[in-house]
């Protein structure tokens, strides 16, 4: 059997038996070899096979737009990948917590979600810095604003942050476990609420997996409408983030204009599917709502004025010297660091990592209307803001093109039973970055294992790293420049 893994395309269902199960050493060789060639780790997860756990890796090769799956049976322990492959760091902690497998040589196998029996969220050992004048600031799980819960520990020397540690798991509600045994009436709702501000992204990723397992290809029209939903979601969230970044440096004009403009894009989504957050839009087999010519006209009529106001509003932000002084050289991640940590999405692109599922693994409407990569080099808060600014403009132009040339076709095709004994992977560029879903079906065609990798799972460590040697008072703006998901991470 091949020891280089089984190649597959996103949205292709392959027989589970064709995924090579190799030795721990061979598994490590495949992973390290592919990472060395520029692949990134899209997923590394455990799933039960005959009463023990099997570990499967999904490697994403952006050069050829293909994926690679390889598996091994670790038993109770195996030599950790992390010392050589930093991007496996969080995955191996998860593996240890979920399955009790010990990756030997991992620097610190701390809980990821505090899900083992008796675990108390937040109660674990933290990095500690000793010394006179060194102090620790603990924040959360309940934060000051209306946001999700998480615990942050800063080791500080005066105002300077020596290290930030992020401890999550408060939002764990058992979604992956509940998806097993499906699909059923709740499946799509789990997908839509994996990270509720990225409903179109996660629902699309989930729908693609289910469709490939069922052997159904949705119409081009429905794929185009999904892409519109995905880009409107990106526009709304990026706009909101730019406003929030402005708010965090007390630049109120952009903060209040963008707060309102974010809603304009959400309301456009509601015009299509009735929900501002895109609930009901994506359904396995296509979309839940078609658009009429009149609705398309209305949407296009709203897009242009909203974009004019957005441009006006955000230009103020970038032209204001007091804002530029706060955004530049703050929370910097080098390209090297971003690659090593396996970052995705705007955070990666802001550090010069040319990584975007829409161009690397194009599917659906992205195949006929390409999206330009928004790439910056400075890796600071400014770069992450600039990437968002550029992406909102590109998304608007994409939505305009798709809606003006909407293919014909039925909005939805029925998805019946799933093929048994298959594995399928989907990749979607959500507004935070690459969303990866992996599903395996059992002998009866039910879901036997479901793995969700939210972009935040890759990126939380990036935020922690970006805060080193920064001032603690810069945390809010730094945090907002990443704006990661807690519930998408905690699942």
């Amino acid at each position, binding site marked *: 059997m091949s020891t280089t893994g089984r190649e597959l395309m996103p949205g292709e269902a392959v027989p589970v038996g064709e995924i090579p199960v190799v030795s721990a050493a061979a598994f490590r060789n495949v992973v390290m070899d592919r990472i060395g060639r520029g692949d990134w780790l899209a997923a590394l997860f455990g799933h039960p096979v005959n009463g023990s756990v099997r570990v499967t890796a999904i490697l994403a090769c952006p050069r050829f737009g293909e994926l690679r799956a390889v598996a091994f049976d670790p038993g109770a322990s195996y030599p950790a990948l992390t010392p050589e492959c930093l991007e496996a760091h969080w995955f191996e902690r998860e593996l240890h917590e979920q399955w009790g497998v010990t990756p030997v040589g991992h620097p610190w196998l701390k809980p990821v*979600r505090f*899900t083992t029996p008796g675990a108390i*969220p937040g109660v674990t050992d933290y990095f500690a810095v000793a010394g006179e004048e060194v102090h620790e600031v603990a924040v959360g*799980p*309940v934060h*000051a*604003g*209306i*946001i*999700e*819960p998480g615990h942050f520990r800063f080791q500080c020397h005066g105002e300077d942050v020596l290290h930030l540690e992020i401890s999550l*798991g*408060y*939002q*764990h*509600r*058992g*979604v992956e*476990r*509940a998806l097993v045994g499906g699909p059923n*009436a*709740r499946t*799509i*709702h*789990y997908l839509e*609420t994996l*990270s*509720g*501000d990225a*409903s179109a992204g996660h629902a699309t990723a989930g729908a693609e997996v289910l469709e490939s397992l069922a052997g159904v290809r949705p119409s081009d029209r429905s794929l185009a409408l999904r892409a519109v939903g995905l880009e409107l979601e990106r526009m709304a969230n990026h706009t*909101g983030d730019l406003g929030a970044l402005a708010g965090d440096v007390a630049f109120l*004009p952009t903060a*209040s*204009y963008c*707060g*309102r403009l*974010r*809603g304009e894009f959400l*309301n456009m989504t*509601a*015009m*299509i*599917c*009735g*929900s*501002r*957050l895109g*609930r*009901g839009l994506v359904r396995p087999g296509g979309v*839940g*709502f078609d658009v009429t010519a009149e609705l398309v006209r209305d949407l296009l009529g709203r897009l242009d004025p909203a974009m004019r*106001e957005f441009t*006006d*509003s955000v230009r*103020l932000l970038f*032209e204001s010297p007091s804002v530029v002084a706060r955004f530049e050289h703050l929370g910097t991640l080098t390209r090297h660091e971003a690659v090593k940590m396996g970052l995705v999405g705007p955070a990666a692109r802001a550090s010069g990592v040319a990584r975007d599922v829409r161009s690397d693994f194009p599917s659906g409407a992205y195949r006929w209307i390409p999206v330009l990569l928004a790439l910056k080099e400075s890796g600071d808060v400014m770069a992450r803001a600039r990437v968002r600014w550029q992406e909102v403009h590109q998304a608007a132009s994409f939505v305009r093109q798709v809606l003006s040339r909407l293919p014909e076709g039925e909005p939805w095709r029925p998805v019946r039973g799933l093929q048994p004994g298959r594995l399928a992977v989907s990749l979607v560029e959500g507004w935070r970055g690459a969303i990866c879903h992996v599903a395996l079906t059992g002998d009866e065609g039910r879901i036997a294992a479901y793995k969700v990798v939210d972009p935040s799972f890759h990126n939380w460590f990036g935020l922690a790293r970006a805060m080193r040697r920064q001032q603690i008072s810069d945390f809010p703006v730094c945090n907002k420049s990443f704006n990661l*998901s*807690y*519930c998408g991470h*905690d699942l």
Partner: protein
Amino acid sequence: MIRTLITRWRQGHRTIRYPDALAVLPERFRGLPAIDSAQCPNGCRECVDACPTGAVSVEGGHVRVHLGRCLFCPECAQACPHGAIGFTTDHRLAVSDPRDLLTDGREYRLARQLDEASMRLFGRSLRLRQVSAGGCAGCEVETNVLGTVVFDLGRFGIQFVASPRHADGLLVTGPVTRNMAAALEKTYAAIPTPRIVIVVGACAISGGPYRGHPEALDGAASVGPAVLYVPGCPPHPLTILDGLLRLLGRIGS
């Protein structure tokens, strides 16, 4: 500077006039369900089977929807071949008594004003501490936008505050995960009495899509009875605003 002023002028005045003028929502918005049980043939359970959370039931020939469980998804309406169940664009959904969440489409009793003693305390100034306990960020972002210029919650004397010590009440979202239960309880305990509880969203009312999960507690009942239940998955910001304004007697009294 001149540019800042020009932009300010161009952005205009964007605060909605609600509650003085009614809001217009998109045609496809799913608000208060419209139920016409007369259309239902005997024994038909299409809507019941399509519902992901058990919100729809049929009893004695009457279709009933539990809005505390309802995700306001289109599934029941799309499954019904008889046009007996659908949604109106009426966003007013918040109630004071959780028993009022069950509706057969004939009447729906909206939230009432707080009692006189509470009105004296909170009627002109209500400070809330929000806690997300397993929420998917949906209810959180829709609550958060009440602070934008569009809704401008501050003009009604309502404000979200950072510390529970400064709060008059707790606004809970999410199904209350086991991992957040202690933090939620402690936050509630830190709010000085008398205090109120407001629950927002299907998760906080009933567990939402996570109802029955061992990882969560099926909502915020553990913190005690609430004075306001706001259905939705997530509720539209106007639904939350409408509920808050009814609670404070700004609408409907």
